[in-house]
């Protein structure tokens, strides 16, 4: 029979302050198979671990119970400790007498001590039935996938590629660059956004380790850490990238003009287009929804009567290298990767939901991103800030903060993090563009917590002479050429009305469209708004709860550029820590099928969230379930789903759990 050692940890006064350690030790002495009991001031300290190792050797212990903090904290530590003393690391059981006991029962020491004894008793009963478990080595694909080609994804891709690993970067839009490419300048340094972004975009395009797939979307993901299999839909551009010279004749001559998404509708683009001059790759795409020739083809295909629309095909006729390829079709690519970085970014809140701000019907009520495009030298007005309604230069500009942020009526309780700063930046830039501009910034709180941010707000107030008014706007309406903005100066406690030429709504940040669906196919968690959930909000901020899938940027939460870049790099390091391993070690605490009891009903398969149950045919022709140990996460759902008691979880077998329960009343 097994010789069990029990080690009771004081954790300073964390446990010993509430639980009577001597009583717990005395009780442990009497428990079945326990041959040795000791206590430790701090079991996790080097001294504590050494004491445990020495006791294992000296007392010839075969099983160990450590009554201490949560296994979340130190199970890994203690497994190594017992392994160093020659024990199988899975012959260890932790009794959590801190989080489950001393911390929550500090007001009743006697009861806490009694509970601690029972927890130890259960652990002893369980560990007596432990079996040695052994990990397995699995191979892995040393290649990464980055989803999203904004600044976060670009940073992650470059860092991994520079470390020598191949990377596939998938971007839904025809170009990488993301939202940052739309910005004019960045706070608090006022660097030109595209000047600092485009070198990185070009580096991505030229990097030998990066495969760039734009106009492409991740459709499905299967597999597990080290061995993911990804389906990517490459949408047809109808332009042969190998022939195109990016001369630009096609989009200059295309007769179809539609509002440009990149400029938020402030200017036109053609049906064949590149979103902006520095786009990477600089290969135009044909927008199938608007191309005249595509419409002609659809008309013919429908076989309708009447006048046929024009065939157009001007781009095809004028293209010098004959790169237009009408035959090009969507393709599905299948790639194997070992790690995934999700950097799907954000979109801005739809301000037309605010009826009191005109619901989008006043042309001179614009959004912050629209103002970025007006300020930008590469924007639709080449950097001239004009009113969309009449092209005049606005002199009185009102900024409205928290549009779609901190607003529970709109289902957005959270702060969007960047608006206070970008409003200050835009006020400074407006003053630089036109010294006669007077900006009024309505705010609730000025959130300027970053490095150099508060100083930047002062700059907006002192140099750019922006007037900050504390209060939310209630109403905007058109009065002739002016927009009447009604707010409160809550510092004076009086209503305020400003007759503005231009109103800028600081629309908040929300996850990109489709983020939830992607998270579902990746099997990672997202919150009520669709932001991806971190494995731990403080200690594992760029990891998802699914191993091998990492997160970066505004897909997690609203963030500014330095934050996104830092997260991109952090996610890259985490992914590299997977890719750089020679092989992966599997967790042996997985489900196992008893082939004699399995009836092949596959209730387990339906219960499994990780596609870890396969079928196999036994020699006598019976089809039964079998666990794919690499996919199994050890969650135990299949165990509870199995009606025939054929499923078991190694390390948490039904016998072990029953022994724990039995120990309670014995």
């Amino acid at each position, binding site marked *: 029979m097994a010789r069990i050692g029990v080690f009771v940890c004081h954790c300073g006064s964390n446990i010993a302050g509430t639980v009577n350690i001597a009583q717990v030790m005395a009780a442990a002495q009497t428990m079945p198979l326990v041959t040795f009991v000791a206590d430790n001031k701090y079991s996790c300290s080097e001294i504590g671990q050494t004491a445990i190792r020495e006791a294992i050797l000296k007392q010839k212990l075969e099983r160990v119970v450590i009554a201490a903090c949560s296994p979340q904290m130190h199970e890994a530590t203690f497994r190594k400790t017992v392994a160093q003393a020659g024990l199988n690391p899975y012959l260890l059981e932790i009794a959590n007498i801190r989080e489950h006991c001393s911390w929550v029962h500090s007001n009743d020491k006697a009861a806490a001590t009694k509970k601690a004894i029972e927890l130890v008793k259960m652990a002893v009963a369980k560990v007596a039935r432990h079996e040695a478990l052994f990990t397995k080595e699995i191979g892995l694909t040393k290649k990464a996938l980055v989803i999203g080609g904004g600044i976060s994804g670009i940073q992650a891709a470059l860092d991994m590629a520079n470390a020598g690993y191949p990377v596939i970067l998938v971007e839904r839009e025809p170009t990488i660059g993301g939202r940052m490419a739309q910005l004019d300048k960045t706070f608090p340094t006022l660097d030109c956004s595209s000047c600092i972004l485009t070198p990185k975009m070009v580096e991505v395009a030229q990097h030998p380790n990066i495969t760039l797939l734009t106009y492409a979307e991740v459709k499905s993901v299967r597999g597990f850490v080290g061995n993911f299999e990804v389906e990517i839909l490459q949408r047809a551009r109808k332009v042969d990238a190998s022939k195109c010279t990016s001369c630009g004749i096609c989009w200059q001559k295309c007769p179809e003009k539609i509002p440009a998404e990149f400029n938020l509708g402030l200017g036109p683009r053609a049906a064949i287009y590149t979103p902006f001059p520095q786009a990477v790759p600089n290969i135009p795409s044909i927008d199938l929804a608007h191309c005249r020739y595509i419409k002609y083809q659809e008309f013919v295909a429908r076989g309708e009567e009447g006048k046929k629309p024009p065939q157009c095909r001007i781009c095809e006729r004028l293209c010098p290298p004959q790169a237009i390829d009408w035959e090009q079709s969507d393709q599905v690519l299948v790639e194997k990767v070992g790690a995934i970085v999700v950097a799907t970014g954000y979109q801005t809140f739809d301000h037309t939901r605010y009826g009191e701000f005109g*619901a989008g019907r006043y042309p001179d009520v614009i959004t912050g991103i629209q103002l970025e495009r007006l300020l930008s030298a590469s924007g639709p007005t080449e950097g001239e800030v004009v009113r969309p309604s009449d092209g005049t230069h606005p002199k009185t500009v009102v900024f409205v903060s928290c549009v779609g942020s901190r607003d529970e009526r709109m289902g957005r309780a959270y702060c969007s993090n960047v608006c206070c700063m970008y409003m200050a930046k835009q006020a400074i830039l407006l003053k630089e563009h036109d010294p006669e501009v007077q900006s009024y910034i309505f705010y609730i709180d000025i959130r300027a917590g970053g490095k150099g941010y508060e100083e930047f707000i002062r700059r907006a107030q002192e140099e750019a002479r922006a007037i900050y008014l504390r209060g939310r706007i209630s109403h905007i309406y058109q009065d002739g050429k002016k927009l009447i903005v009604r707010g409160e100066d809550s510092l004076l406690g009086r209503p305020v009305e400003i007759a503005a030429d231009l109103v800028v709504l600081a629309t908040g940040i929300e996850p990109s469209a489709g983020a939830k669906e992607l998270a579902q196919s990746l099997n990672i968690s997202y919150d009520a708004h669709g932001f991806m959930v971190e494995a731990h909000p403080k200690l594992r901020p760029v990891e998802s709860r699914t191993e091998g899938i990492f997160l970066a940027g505004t897909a997690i939460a609203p963030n500014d550029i330095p934050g996104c870049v830092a997260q991109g790099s952090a996610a890259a390091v985490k992914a590299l820590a997977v890719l750089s391993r020679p092989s992966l070690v599997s967790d042996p605490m997985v489900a196992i099928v008893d082939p004699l009891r399995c009836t092949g009903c596959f209730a387990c398969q339906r219960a499994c969230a990780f596609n870890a149950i396969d079928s196999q045919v036994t020699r006598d022709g019976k089809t039964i379930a079998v666990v794919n140990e690499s996919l199994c996460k050890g969650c135990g759902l299949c165990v509870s789903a199995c009606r025939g008691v054929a499923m078991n979880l190694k390390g948490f077998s039904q016998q072990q759990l029953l022994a724990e329960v039995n120990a309670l009343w014995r």
Partner: protein
Amino acid sequence: MAGRTYAYYPGCALHGTAREYDVSARLVCQTLNVKLQEIKDWSCCGASSAASLSPLLGIALPAHNLKLAAAMELPITTPCAMCSYRLKTAAHELKDEATARQVSEVLGSAVGPEVTVEPLLQVLSEDLSFPIRKPLTGLKVACYYGCLLVRPKSVLQFDDEENPQTMDRLITALGAEAIDWGLKTECCGAGLPLARPDLVHRLAYRIISLAQRLGADCIATACPMCQSNLDIHQKEIEAEHGEKLGLPIFYFTQLLGLALGFTPRELYLHKHLTNPLPLLRAKGLG
């Protein structure tokens, strides 16, 4: 709408300051075959005075009228925005069991929340194919809804709180032009002209002057308080601001009546203090 019968609740103002609303409403309803059966011996809904001093009284007074209408087995319609607000709110509050219990204790018998209440504007907007005899071509109208027709949408379920369109569509169907403006649902001072005329003058001035600056020839209303606040006080407001306004304030039923071929006198247009007849003559409608 056409052919349907409603329990008609005119409300107190329509027997006094807003008689022209009652007269014009009855005329157009008759023409459009909307049958109105006045609720017998209806009583006041309590307006804001009852509700603002006692929440329970604010429900019990309209509930009494809901009870009268329930006996007629007809949906209620009322031209008055305040009355329709109070009646609809009471019906909404009666969905709450505790409130319903209290109210039935007060009224001596239970009142169900199932009586439907539709403001007359809603009833007359259901079908916009009017038999128009005199289109209001060339007339620019600022449709003014005030507060109580639309707010709160969660209870009233009628039209958009910030930019309602029902009256605009009706006015457009008459051949007139409804201007887009931002004070459609701004408050005009409600029932306070007696207690705080200064307040009402200021609010009315904001509304009238914006409509006028944006090119409206007149304002159309669907509420006796809105109409009288904007109409009756214009002379005093003009004196206070040293500015000529003279903007006619119509009930929407009067504009509808004009288009249906009734004369200004039949529609009691001579009852307004801000004389609309010069405008109608100038537009060839008088």
